[in-house]
């Protein structure tokens, strides 16, 4: 970091000494996000308190030519908030005020550090904010914006991008722009829409305006058990083909049921090949009409049993089984690697067969948890990190699973983001021309490449001047990067 000391002094001037962290041991708190396989200690971490301070920090970094990474709660699962060794980490956790609850217009204006769950809490019980990542108790709305987070209820309700209508953004040159607002369809380009899911590479949001909607009148939940995920998959197809749009439809395989049962004690059969959790929400009268139909469809698809949650307490136990899946896997395996690929739902049987075959080939266990409605798989590749070479083998297997999903017409990531973790798979999904088009957008927002560089795109790229004469970039001259 050239002139690093001068920059750190400036950051101290902006945020106060107490909010600029430079000691190695203190910085280790920030070395990873939720993806622990990657760790980098940044040069400094800075914790601004306001949007103005964020803008001043970004401006100072821009003037010093120092790259930076924004971080919310650090619960991301793709390494999107992985710091840069020579960069500044901008931690947004002090920007946690809900600025306005405008229930009449069904909007909430908040700072990026506000947790996802806090938004629903602020508008409840009459309203709620639908996107509900499993980490919603801790994850921040700013992180949700960066990743376009999903969750269990997205099949019916949509994703972060369908609910964020306005943003205040600090661009990588330190300038501040308003994108969208409380109103929809404002004239001009939908820059708010394209910012959501840009993984911190276009700037940092300092204010977020979201849409909230009325809380469904009624919720009913059931779980049914099948011989295998394939059979459960047939039930999913039958339910969806019948025109039912469940609020959530989640699948767990035998390994996951066993792990979660040890933690959540729901009394689910340990010999079941798959559990299918189906939740319908909506007007009471409509649920009466469709809920029984769902149970019947599960039976027709060959389930061994249907259990209906009798009350809210039992419903919470069902959900605890699902939401415990990741932490509970720690009891089964000392380490695991989470994937997030997506397939067209109809390809489920074929892809599961491929995953089984790959798991045998690599001699590793793969547990499967799915958002079954939208074909979003979360295979958990289990391994022993202390066994020689096993981590590498697990990573290679996880990579093969991603490739299998893309080959089936799917995506490398459904909700966790590309980050550092999946950028090497980007060329499996996108051509050089596609990546060039992405880079055009990137260059419009961040011509100097200072915002979260090294994420999303598979190889480093530089931005030329547009329009204007060609000039060679120093990195290009040194053969370190290719000009876009």
């Amino acid at each position, binding site marked *: 970091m050239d002139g690093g000391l001068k920059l750190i002094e400036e950051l101290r001037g902006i945020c106060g000494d107490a909010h600029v962290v430079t000691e190695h041991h203190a910085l280790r708190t920030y070395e990873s996000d939720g993806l622990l396989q990657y760790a980098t200690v940044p040069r400094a971490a800075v914790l601004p308190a306001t949007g103005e301070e964020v803008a001043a920090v970004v401006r100072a970094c821009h003037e010093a030519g120092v790259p930076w990474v924004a971080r919310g709660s650090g619960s991301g699962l793709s390494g999107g908030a992985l710091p840069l060794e020579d960069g500044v980490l901008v931690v947004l956790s002090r920007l946690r005020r809900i600025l306005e609850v405008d*229930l*009449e*217009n*069904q909007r909430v204006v908040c700072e990026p550090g506000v947790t996802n769950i806090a938004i629903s809490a602020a508008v409840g019980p*009459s309203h709620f904010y639908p996107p509900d990542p499993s980490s919603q108790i801790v994850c921040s709305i700013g992180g949700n914006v960066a990743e376009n987070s*999903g969750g269990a209820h997205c099949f019916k309700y*949509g994703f972060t991008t369908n609910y964020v209508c306005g943003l205040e953004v600090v661009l990588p040159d330190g300038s501040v*722009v*308003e*994108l*969208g607002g*409380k109103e*929809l*369809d404002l*004239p*001009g*380009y939908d*820059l708010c*829409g394209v910012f*959501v*899911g840009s993984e911190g590479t276009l700037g940092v949001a300092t204010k977020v305006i979201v849409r909230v909607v*009325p*809380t*469904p009148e009624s919720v009913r939940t059931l779980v049914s058990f099948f011989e295998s995920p394939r059979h459960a998959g047939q039930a999913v*197809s039958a339910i*969806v083909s019948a025109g039912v*749009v469940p609020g959530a439809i989640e699948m767990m395989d035998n390994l996951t049921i066993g792990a979660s049962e040890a933690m959540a004690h729901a009394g689910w059969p340990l010999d079941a090949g798959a559990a299918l959790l189906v939740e319908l929400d909506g*007007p009471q*009268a*409509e649920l*009466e009409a*469709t809920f029984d139909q769902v149970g019947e469809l599960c039976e027709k698809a060959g389930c061994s049993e249907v259990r209906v949650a009798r009350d809210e307490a039992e419903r919470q136990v069902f959900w605890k089984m699902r939401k415990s899946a990741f932490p509970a896997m720690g009891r089964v395996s000392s380490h695991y690697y989470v994937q997030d690929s*997506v*397939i*067209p739902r*109809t390809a489920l049987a074929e892809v599961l067969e491929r995953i089984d075959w790959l798991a045998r080939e690599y001699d590793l266990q793969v547990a499967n948890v799915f958002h079954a409605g939208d*074909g979003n798989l979360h295979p958990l590749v289990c391994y022993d990190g202390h066994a020689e070479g096993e981590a590498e083998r697990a990573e290679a297997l996880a990579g093969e699973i991603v490739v299998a999903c893309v080959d089936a*017409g799917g*995506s*490398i*990531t*459904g*909700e*966790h983001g*590309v980050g550092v973790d*999946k950028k090497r798979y*980007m060329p499996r*999904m*996108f051509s050089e*021309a*596609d*990546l*060039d*088009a*992405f880079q055009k*957008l990137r260059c*419009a*927002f961040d011509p100097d490449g200072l915002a979260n560089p090294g994420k999303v795109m598979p190889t480093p790229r530089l931005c030329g001047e*547009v*329009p204007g004469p060609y000039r060679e970039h120093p990195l290009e001259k040194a053969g370190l990067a290719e000009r876009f």
Partner: protein
Amino acid sequence: MDAAGVAAALREASGVRVVGGGTKLGWGRPIEAPELSVAELDAIVEHNVGDLTAILQAGCPLATARDAFAAEGQMLALDPPDDGATIGGVVATGDSGPLRHRYGSPRDLVLGVQVALPDGSLARAGSKVIKNVAGYDLAKLMSGAYGTLGVVTEVSVRLHPKPREWLTVVVRRDDPHALAAAASELTHRPLEAERLDLRWDGDAGAVLVQLCGASAPERAASIDGEVVEVDEELWAAQRAAQRGPVVLRVSSTQQGLADVLSAARDHGAVCVARAAHGLAWLRLEAADAELVTALRARLGACVLLDAPAALRREVDPWGPLSAEPLMRRVKARFDPYDTLNPGLLLT
């Protein structure tokens, strides 16, 4: 001409007017440029019935797609006016109809795009699965960009089950504020309405709530209004009022709709609005620049859609753009020589 042909044509062109069904050529600033049509790209490339997704070429008429999906009990939840409109044009203009209430606008239903860019490349973004966060969401960028950043040649879309039973409840009021209040009460209830619109015409108005599903009659009973079982004409009229001699689309809020309805009454306009989204269309028999300016001062962001070319020359059809310098930077990267619909959106 196939998609690669469109891209090749763009590389050679100095300026083109991008055309699909040709139903919205009167929107934006009037421009003169040779036409580049994507109307020949009219295929339904895939209809993945089990996945509730489809891939459509840009020139595919919405009506053709609608019929094909309906045959499988499915729908693309976009019902803007103009029967001759193509999916590409609807996406490019971000146009929407009453189904917007529940399903959102084209940006919310488009899963991926293929675009031809002025540098002659053909790029894809997004995917054909309903959940995907890989790469930048250029489908959002292209939605509503009026073909000024790239020519959409293909889109993949999410489909929904087509309701089998429905009805509409009509709640009438003869005062704009009372009407807006009635709508607000309904938008704050968990009705799961399919459509929830407002209408003002002359000196009276109505809230229209369409409910679907087997329980629709039971749910309708909780709303104090007239139940209309054969409701096609009601909704056709809502869509039709989004077109006219002069049409302004107002980006307001739920609370702001009372003012929009009052303005409609004051100026003898027909107004239709998506009550929960705060979006309104004002249909006037005639307007001059002064009236457009006055309505903007009163109501906020108004885009002038249908209007005589002379009016669209005299007054900026878009009004002020937030973050305009950044929009220009985006335009400069995607279309540095102003090849695509030059002057239509940014001058």
